[in-house]
């Protein structure tokens, strides 16, 4: 199996296993646990197999949209494998522990396992992703699963708040990560971490990218002052706290830094950002841990402190000591392993105490060594490791951190950062030692009256913890046993590991700092200082920010989202107008009256007179519309505006537009006449007085837009087309209209009507969407009007007075109109056919033909009635629309399958054509083009939609 398949399976195995548990019998808790644990275990074992080749691992995976950097590539180098093994290894231990923690409660276990599986998959994805965007996706997935797990107690408002806080903060960090990697991708062209070292990016992009990745790491790894979510996350069940919020997820930020440190440590900002951030977090959180009231809070803050140490460590990696044989970044992975090997057991033991002895607060730990000897002793061992006591793996780890920081003080610049790190680690070490002393005194103290020995419920409650703690002891005393395994994953390995005894043989400032801090810690632990449990200022930071955000949001909403449509319209238009005004005032040319070339020199006088008349007609009708009160007058004036606009189209050489507009105008007038009859007339809202402020506003906007058009029109042609007409898009279409979209095929003889060729051939997709809109509008109209309700008397049309000519609506219909229409309607339909077939060569086409036919049919409907129309077109108009759309779609799809009949497959809506010669000497011919079928679809949709709508509206009045 190739590496990429192994990695893909390993990543998704935990999620799949977690989801499979949902299919198992609800009561089979043990079976569910076994299946749930098999996922991470499988990942662990299969990834171990890749460890041998870690040195030579490449980037393997699958592309998705490689041009945009969207791909899923994985890498199994030492860092990735270490982190993945940590995630899957601890995951395999956590699942059985969770089973014991919930005492086999099938419902709770059943709920937990899919979430844990999802989380493990997300973390494995973060670890193994080489694509930056892939890592981002998995990164966000960890946020989501963490949100679900923190909000475990769905009815507890505190837990829900904590879940929200964690999701908001780490989610914002995820956005920062996305922007950061996008900057790298766009400016440097790299979308994979493995290529980051080769990318050349402008300085600002490097700085911005580093800063944004720093934000992401700081949120995920709970750095000051964004750490508030991590103590809050302790609302989750203890197995979750042990897994997500101490061993794995919170290390994702640190992992991200480890991923990029080698490539980015040359950036000036790197050490300046991360060393102070980490040092501050390390010292501050250690002090807060000492003041914590509950066991989990203490452990959470000590985790924050340790995360600060990691960030500080990777920050120091950016400082290069003057002596190149020294490196400040020694043992970067061992540090992470060390922390996982004592913090996860501490959390597990805390959970055990809480479940079996009811211990939640520090004060309740009194006498634990007698009540639960195994758990109590293991807890103390864990705390001893946390305090970096001699003889533990942790001691060596802390020692190397101090050594690295000490070497950083010899760096060529920013040497003070090394000292800062040493001071911070000393404070943190002292606090941890003090914690050990205080808790130790409680645990071994006298038992309270009445409390009895409690036995841990199951071995699973303590032995995973003991196993991990064993690592600490072996690593501290006889590291040779672990050397092979550890050095194989270390990215910057020393030659061999050091035990405590080796380190005691190397006296110097680092050893002095470690031991001095320990001694100071013991004194601090015995002293009355920092004893009073209390909260910390950042506890309320998020709450306050959240309330502030809410206040701002409410203010914004109550200003803008008033529910008043008029207000929305006003705000939108005013914003647009203000934008236009700003643009105009910034350029002096807008403020001058443009030199105007005049009307006369470019057009024949007759046309000019016609144009002026048409413009006056449009303006007068438009201005007359607002004061109109009678609805019939309104509709007619509105129609007048439309006819004026039609004239303007005609004058400006757009015959297709003029034809379309005039047909739509006729249908619109009829439609409005019908709708207006159903609307109330002369209501209070309708007959209000002249609204001067709004009139003024509308006038200002009109003047602004008019002024802009005026100026745009005055720009000379030379400025519009500086390099000649061939550069213009319109000219391109004029040149290529005869070829159509099948440009490569060398066909010619497409349409002469360039507008129609653009519509049905070049921009066929647009037209396709357009007829779909028309059809949807018609369906919506039918839906809004509901099923038709015809009055029985009218249906049978029985009530008639002899000798009187009745229309379909029992209204009088002019006989002249009726008789006239009997002649005109067939002629109009024939004309529609003519327009349809000539459309590709002269003004016309499917749209216009459809409209001509629609107008004829609508008039026929008005004079002859519903039944007559029904007998003429026996189809449901909605069916017509569907049929038209289907015809257009099928026509478009034919080129796709041309290869089936021996041709070459062409893109959707490619058209072809030929000349159909009508005589021998080839002087008479007819253009036969495949777009005609597309146009037929358009025609049918237009007829179906417009006739269907008007017909339905008329029915409403019958």
């Amino acid at each position, binding site marked *: 199996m190739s590496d990429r398949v192994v990695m893909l399976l390993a990543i998704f195995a935990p999620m799949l296993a977690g989801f499979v548990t949902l299919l198992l019998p609800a009561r089979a808790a043990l079976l569910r646990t076994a299946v749930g644990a098999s996922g991470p275990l499988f990942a662990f074992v299969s990834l171990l197999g890749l460890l041998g080749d870690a040195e030579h691992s490449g980037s393997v995976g699958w592309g998705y949209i490689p041009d945009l950097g969207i791909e899923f590539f994985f890498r199994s180098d030492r860092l990735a494998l270490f982190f993945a093994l940590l995630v899957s290894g601890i995951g395999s231990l956590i699942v059985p522990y969770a089973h014991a923690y919930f005492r086999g409660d099938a419902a709770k276990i059943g709920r937990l396992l899919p979430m844990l599986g999802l989380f493990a998959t997300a973390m494995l994805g973060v670890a193994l992703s080489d694509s930056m965007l892939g890592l981002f996706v998995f990164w966000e997935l960890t946020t989501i699963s963490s949100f679900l797990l923190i909000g475990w107690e769905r009815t507890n408002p505190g837990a829900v708040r904590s879940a929200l806080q964690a999701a908001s903060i780490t989610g914002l960090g995820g956005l920062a990560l996305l922007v950061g990697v996008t900057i790298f991708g766009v400016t440097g062209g790299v979308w994979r971490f493995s290529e980051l070292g080769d990318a050349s990016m402008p300085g600002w992009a490097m700085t911005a990218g580093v800063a944004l990745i720093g934000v992401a790491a700081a949120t995920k790894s709970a750095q000051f002052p964004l750490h508030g979510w991590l103590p809050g996350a302790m609302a989750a069940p203890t197995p979750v706290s042990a897994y997500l919020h101490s061993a794995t997820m919170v290390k994702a930020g640190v992992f991200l830094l480890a991923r990029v440190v080698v490539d980015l440590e040359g950036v000036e900002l790197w050490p300046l950002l991360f060393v102070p951030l980490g040092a501050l977090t390390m010292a501050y959180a250690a002090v807060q841990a000492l003041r914590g009231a509950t066991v989990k809070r203490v452990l959470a803050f000590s985790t924050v402190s340790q995360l600060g140490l990691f960030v500080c460590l990777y920050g120091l990696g950016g400082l290069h000591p003057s002596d190149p044989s020294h490196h400040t970044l020694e043992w970067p992975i061992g540090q992470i392993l060390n922390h996982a090997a004592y913090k996860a057991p501490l959390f597990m033991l805390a959970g055990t105490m809480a479940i079996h002895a009811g211990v939640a607060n520090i004060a309740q730990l009194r006498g634990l060594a007698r009540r639960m000897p195994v758990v109590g002793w293991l807890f103390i061992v864990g705390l001893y490791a946390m305090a970096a006591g001699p003889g533990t793996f942790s001691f060596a780890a802390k020692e190397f951190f101090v050594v690295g920081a000490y070497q950083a003080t010899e760096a060529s610049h920013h040497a003070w950062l090394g000292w800062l790190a040493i001071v911070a680690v000393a404070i943190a070490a002292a606090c941890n030692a003090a914690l050990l002393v205080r808790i130790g005194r409680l645990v071994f103290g006298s038992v309270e009256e009445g409390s009895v020995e409690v036995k841990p419920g199951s071995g699973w409650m303590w032995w995973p913890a003991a196993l991990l703690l064993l690592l600490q002891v072996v690593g501290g005393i006889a590291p040779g046993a672990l050397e092979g395994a550890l050095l194989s994953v270390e990215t910057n390995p020393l030659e061999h590991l050091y035990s405590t005894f080796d380190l005691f043989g190397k006296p110097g400032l680092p050893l002095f700092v470690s031991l001095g801090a320990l001694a100071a810690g013991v004194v601090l632990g015995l002293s009355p200082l920092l004893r009073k449990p209390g909260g910390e200022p950042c506890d309320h930071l998020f709450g306050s920010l959240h309330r502030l955000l809410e206040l701002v949001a409410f203010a914004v909403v109550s200003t803008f989202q008033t529910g008043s449509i008029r207000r929305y319209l006003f705000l939108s238009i005013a914003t647009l107008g203000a934008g236009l005004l700003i643009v105009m005032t910034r350029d002096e040319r807008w403020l001058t009256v443009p030199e105007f070339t005049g009307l006369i020199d470019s057009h024949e006088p007759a046309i000019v007179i016609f144009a002026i008349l048409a413009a006056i007609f449009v303006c007068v009708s438009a201005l007359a519309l607002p004061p109109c009160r009678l609805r019939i007058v309104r509709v007619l004036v509105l129609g007048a505006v439309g006819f004026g606009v039609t004239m303007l189209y005609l004058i400006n050489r757009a*015959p297709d537009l003029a034809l379309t507009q005039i047909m739509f105008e006729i249908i619109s007038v009829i439609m409005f006449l019908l709708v207006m009859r159903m609307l109330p007339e002369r209501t209070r809202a*309708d007959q209000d007085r002249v609204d001067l402020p709004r*009139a003024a506003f509308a006038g200002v906007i009109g003047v602004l837009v008019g002024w802009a058009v005026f100026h745009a*029109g005055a720009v000379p042609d030379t400025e519009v087309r500086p390099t000649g007409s061939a550069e213009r898009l319109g000219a391109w279409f004029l040149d290529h*209209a005869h070829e159509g979209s099948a440009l490569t095929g060398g066909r010619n003889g497409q349409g002469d009507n360039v507008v129609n060729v653009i*519509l049905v051939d070049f921009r066929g997709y647009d037209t396709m969407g357009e007829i779909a809109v*028309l059809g949807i509008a018609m369906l*919506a*109209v039918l839906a809004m009007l509901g099923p038709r309700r015809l009055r029985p008397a009218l249906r049978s049309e029985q009530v008639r007075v002899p000798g009187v000519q009745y229309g379909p609506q029992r209204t009088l219909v002019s006989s002249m109109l009726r008789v006239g229409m009997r002649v005109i309607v067939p002629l109009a339909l024939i004309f529609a056919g003519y327009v349809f077939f000539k459309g590709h060569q002269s003004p016309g086409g499917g749209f216009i033909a459809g409209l001509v036919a629609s107008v004829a049919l609508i008039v026929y409907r008005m004079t002859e009635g519903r039944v007559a129309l029904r007998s003429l077109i026996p189809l449901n108009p909605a069916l017509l629309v569907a049929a038209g759309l289907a015809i257009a779609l099928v026509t478009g799809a034919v080129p796709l399958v041309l290869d089936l009949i021996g041709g070459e497959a062409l893109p959707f809506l490619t058209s072809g054509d030929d000349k159909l010669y009508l005589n021998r000497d080839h002087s008479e011919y007819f253009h036969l083009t495949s777009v005609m079928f597309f146009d037929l679809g358009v025609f049918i949709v237009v007829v179906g939609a417009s006739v269907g709508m008007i017909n339905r509206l008329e029915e409403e009045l019958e």
Partner: protein
Amino acid sequence: MEALLAVAIGILYAASLYLMLRRSVVKLILGLSLFGHASNLLILTSGKLLKGRPPLIGDDAHALFGEPAVDYADPIPPALILTAIVIGFAILAFSAVLVKRTVQEVGTDDMDQMNNTDLEAAS
């Protein structure tokens, strides 16, 4: 010609905005219709009103390849506007019937009483 159209466009926009900002929903759809005309004319003008023939190229136009086609009006604005007219009509029909239904359901044609999605509150 551009100046003439500029005046017409400005007046059309002013009239349509004034209508749409009034209280009556009936005026809203009237304004919407005018708004469509104004925008279509704006597109037409922004494409430069070339003096020339309509964009109908005859058979003799084969000889035209490679030569500047200044004799023809720009075909793109009409193509865009044609689409806009059809969509505009669809929207107009939809909103007209929507207004009819709304007035029927809510029992008023006053936009200021339509600022709530709950029927009870509006009536």
